């Protein structure tokens, strides 16, 4: 697998086919005696901002830590991957997993559902 071509920046879909992010970073285990092994894909603002520019990444990370106390990038270990084609499919249901789509769920609960028509069309 070519990590940059095949994995990095790929869309991540949950088991319902819902778009839940992009592969903003990849975690590898590097061992001098073996080829590197992929541990997980990572998605999150702190990761993507670091890839855009290191200084920008530092600013964003500092802001996130100040706001919520810690970095909240989500890791998808290879054990939850079900398929990798043009998209990365993971065997998780984003609606049932507390650590996924946190900001989306917060916006839904606190803003969108309070506006008429937000919940039903």
């Amino acid at each position, binding site marked *: 697998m070519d990590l940059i071509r095949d994995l*990095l*920046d790929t*869309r991540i879909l949950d088991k319902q086919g819902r*778009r839940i992010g992009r592969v903003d970073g990849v975690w590898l285990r590097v061992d001098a005696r073996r080829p590197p092994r992929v541990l997980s894909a990572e998605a999150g603002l702190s990761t993507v901002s670091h*890839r*855009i520019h290191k200084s920008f990444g530092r600013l964003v990370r500092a802001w996130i830590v100040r706001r919520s106390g810690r970095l909240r990038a989500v890791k998808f270990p290879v054990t939850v991957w079900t398929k990798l084609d043009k998209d990365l499919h993971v065997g998780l249901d984003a609606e049932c997993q507390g650590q996924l789509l946190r900001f*989306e769920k917060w916006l839904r609960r606190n803003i*969108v559902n309070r506006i008429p028509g*937000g919940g039903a*069309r």
Partner: protein
Amino acid sequence: MKGLLKIALGILTSVGGYLEAGSIGTALQAGAAFRFALLWPIAAGTVCIAFLVEMSGRLAAVSRHTMVDIMRKRFGVSFHIWPFVAQLVVDLFVLASEIGGAAMAMQLAFGGSIRVWALPMAVLVWALLWFTSFATIENGVATLGLVTLCFVVATVQLGPDPHAVASGLVPRLPVSNAAQYGYLAVGMLGATISPYLVTFYSSGAVEEKWSPKDLVANRIVAGIGMSFGGMVSMSVVIVSALVLAPQGIQPESFKDAAGVLRPVFGAGGLYLFAASLGVGCLGAALELALDLSYLAAQTFGWEWGEDQEPSHEARFALTYTAALVLAIVPSLLAIDPLKLTMAAMAFTVIALPIVIGPLMVIMNDPEYLKTHTNGWITNIAVTAIVVLGVILAIVSIPLQFAGS
């Protein structure tokens, strides 16, 4: 039969949704200042946008991914961020000018000021996006947009000299006011080759689940729909050249040009002009606000789609909401919509290579297009027109500002 209906609807959408603040504003000024001499930027721009729209539809039909989706995947986020930011700024700028144009249309029809009308217009756009579906927006606004055909009717009624009109289709150096001529040509190219049309069309094709079976319909809609749309845009130049130029009116704002349809339609001409401007701007504002959400959602991998309830895609719905809030600021500051439009169009042309360049690379990549990659005619035509636009922009924009 179903295919024919789809093509007819696509052409209707292209024609009805073609005119907006940029195309009306630049065409009125061009006709008044240079009569038919600036018909060629519309012709060149229409050829270019027809190619671009066909390309983005083809990409979506073959790969089942949108242009923005593929751009991030193909080039990586550290490159993709530049076209993303460029288009975000251009879209916001143009959205502000469309809201201003719609507010100006209401001012012309009912009085008041654009400051008063900007908020209701933005709320109307937001409500249509929040409460209705993609098909309702696309087909409803395009059908209402057929009111812009009043400019075609006016052209036929006024009976321009066909030779004079045809000569305007060939680019020529102006006798005087070269800077204004170049600046208007840039504005007209920017109004015609709007990048938002390309990303919006690509997102729409994925929303409507296009497949390679739709490639023929895509080609026909892009070619015929955009050509008819370009003709409507040219009719605005012609009517302006036949009505405003002889009276020596050089429109500095939409209000100055409001009487352009009066010689053909009498007192009702003002209302037809206001309706054309209002519906055109409203339709474009809907597409631009949606496009801003598409851009953000596809760049960051959020859930998106105008047919879903806002609660299923809170970030998508709140992006167009925030964009509309930002877009009413220039109107609340009483910045003239036509001046804002001209600036937005010039900026669009400068941003074109950043947005279109990566698309051209993708369109020649068999990994995404399989056997449907671009032919050499498409590559040469689009590159030549975009390069021409940028050169004109680099030369004429500083000259125009130095002159004024």
